[in-house]
């Protein structure tokens, strides 16, 4: 039962977040740009409005100067008081710069420049007319002065000046309206763009929140699915382990029962073979008696028969003994598979030393030596370890070559949880095709010139597996063999706790 993980989101979800972020940034940049532009525009509009107002002010100032000069002239002529002349002079002096200023202010507007150009001579003529009357008054020619005033030329000029000034003002008013409208449009745009930006950002934020919620929901679902799968997996591993242990148990029980039950008929075979031998003795005894009674003294035929009997019995008995040994081996193997393991700290170096001591005699005979490297202490079953390495070292010694001095090296390599022990010899080696076969019960490799039933390595494999490890071999025919036994540093008896 496999629960499929939900698809890891659509492309929208996958690309959504960065795309949204980019979008948000783009909108912010656009809004900022537009806002800066619009603010700049508003500032320009404001300065244009100020400019317009200044132009109007200047025009008004020119009118005032002219009017003030005129009223000062009239006052002087009417009262003949020279005190009015100060005001007249001051107003006349101010007019020139005021006109220049106006000209400068409207320099960007050709129409207004033309208007200013038409205004200037009128103002000059008006001022010229007034100055003439004033100078006549100073020479006390009052009548001549009044005559000049009475010509109404001054009044005519004044009207024209006022007319032109009004024209300029209305032109500037028109510009002011235009600029104010433009400024208000700019401000409106600024508002609209800002509102749009805010709306866009809020929308994006909403989408982002939605997407991230969807993401985290998908993540939670995936997480839940994963933990379901994990649990399932753990359960299945447990089930498989239990199955394997059960199967292993069954095999062990099977081996035990088979070997046990095989011994039973063997007892009969051996027993009755022995009975037959007894019978044979009786039979030959009787045969001899009968033969002698019949007068036949030649016992050579009987002896030949007896020899045949002997040969047959010899084979039967030898086979029975061998079969008994093999059955016993199976029995032992199954017993080792069932024996209770007791994990204790085992100093591997000391263990190897005690094993090598037991083969010292054989080593001297074969001019060999064993080098034991530094070995760690592991927590495992001492008895099983002893049997494993006794078998391996015995084998190494047994199959040393006779033409070179034997050399056996025992070493260890540690990883986090395991230790790999190597038993390397320079003996006769194992043919590649026998590599896995040698671990099978009753199987042997190479010339069968050494004693043995092919049991040792089968035991080694059974025991190593029981200790939660594995055994491998590297070998080159005629060069030597290295057995590598990998064992956990600490033996765990999980399956026994279950029982």
């Amino acid at each position, binding site marked *: 039962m496999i629960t499929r993980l939900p698809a890891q989101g659509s492309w929208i979800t996958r690309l959504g977040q960065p795309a949204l972020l980019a979008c948000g940034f783009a909108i912010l940049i656009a809004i900022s740009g537009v806002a800066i532009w619009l603010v700049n525009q508003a500032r320009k509009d404001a300065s244009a409005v100020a400019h317009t107002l200044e132009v109007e002010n200047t025009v008004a100032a020119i009118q005032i100067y002219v009017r003030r000069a005129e009223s000062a002239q009239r006052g002087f002529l009417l009262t003949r008081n020279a005190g009015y002349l100060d005001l007249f002079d001051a107003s006349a002096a101010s007019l020139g710069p005021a006109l220049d200023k106006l000209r400068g202010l409207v320099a960007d507007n050709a129409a207004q420049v033309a208007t200013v150009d038409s205004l200037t001579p009128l103002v000059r003529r008006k001022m010229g007319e007034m100055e003439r009357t004033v100078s006549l008054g100073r020479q006390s020619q009052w009548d001549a002065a009044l005559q000049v005033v009475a010509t109404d030329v001054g009044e005519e000029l004044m009207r024209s000046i006022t007319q032109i000034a009004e024209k300029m003002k209305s032109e500037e008013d028109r510009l002011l309206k235009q600029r104010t409208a433009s400024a208000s449009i700019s401000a409106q745009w600024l508002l609209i763009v800002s509102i749009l930006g805010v709306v866009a950002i809020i929308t994006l934020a909403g989408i982002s929140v939605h997407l991230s919620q969807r993401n985290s929901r998908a993540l939670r679902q995936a997480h839940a699915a994963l933990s379901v799968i994990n649990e399932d997996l753990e359960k299945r591993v447990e089930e498989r382990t239990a199955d394997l242990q059960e199967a292993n148990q069954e095999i062990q029980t099977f081996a035990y029962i088979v070997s*046990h*039950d095989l*011994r*039973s*008929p*063997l*007892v*009969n075979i*051996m*027993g*009755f*073979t*022995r*009975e037959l031998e007894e019978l044979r003795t009786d039979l030959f005894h009787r045969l001899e008696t009968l033969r002698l009674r019949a007068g036949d003294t030649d016992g050579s035929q009987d002896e030949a028969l007896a020899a045949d009997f002997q040969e047959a019995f010899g084979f039967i008995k030898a086979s*029975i*003994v061998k079969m*008994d040994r093999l059955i016993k081996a199976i029995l032992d193997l199954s*017993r080792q598979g069932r024996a209770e393991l007791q994990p204790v700290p085992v100093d591997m170096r000391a263990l190897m030393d005690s094993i090598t001591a037991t083969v010292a005699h054989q080593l001297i005979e074969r001019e060999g030596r064993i080098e034991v490297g530094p070995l760690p202490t592991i927590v495992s079953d001492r008895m099983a370890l002893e049997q494993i390495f006794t078998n391996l070292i015995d084998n190494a010694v047994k199959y040393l070559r006779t033409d070179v001095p034997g050399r056996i090296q025992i070493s260890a390599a540690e990883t986090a949880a395991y230790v790999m022990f190597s038993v390397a010899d320079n003996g006769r080696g194992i043919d590649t095709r026998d590599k896995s076969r040698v671990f099978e019960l009753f199987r042997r490799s190479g010339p069968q010139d050494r004693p043995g039933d092919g049991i040792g390595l089968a035991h080694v494999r059974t025991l190593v597996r029981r200790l939660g490890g594995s055994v491998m071999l590297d070998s080159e025919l005629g060069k030597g063999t290295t057995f590598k036994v990998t064992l956990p540093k600490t033996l765990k008896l999980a399956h026994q706790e279950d029982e």
Partner: protein
Amino acid sequence: MVNHVTIIMVEDDEGHARLIEKNIRRAGVLNDIVAFRDGTTALEHLFGPDGSGAVNAGRALLVLLDLNLPDMTGVDILKRIKENEHLRRSPVVVLTTTDDKMEIQRCYDLGANVYVTKPVNYENFANAIRQLGLFFSVIQVPEAK
């Protein structure tokens, strides 16, 4: 030889039974041998129809017991004999093909008097049986109460 001792042999394998009997006789033991092929009939004989064992009260019995029986394990029979007040003094000789140390220990713990592993080596087996015969002749089997 204490002649009134009856040997109860519980052995399912006919061949083994025959070999045991032959060798006991060869060793000069002439006591009656009552053979049973399974646990049920043996128990019936030992404990009687009421299962109390009173039927054999006062009789001298020696039990030769195989552990691997078709209907039960000999250990159960051993246990019942040693728990019964009328039979618990009868010597029990366990005969089996198992040389498992744990099983041997268990039988002795339950009160087995002798544990004999059926050897394929016939000479050893015959010796064991003969010694058993001598054992029969020497020990004073106490009468069951």
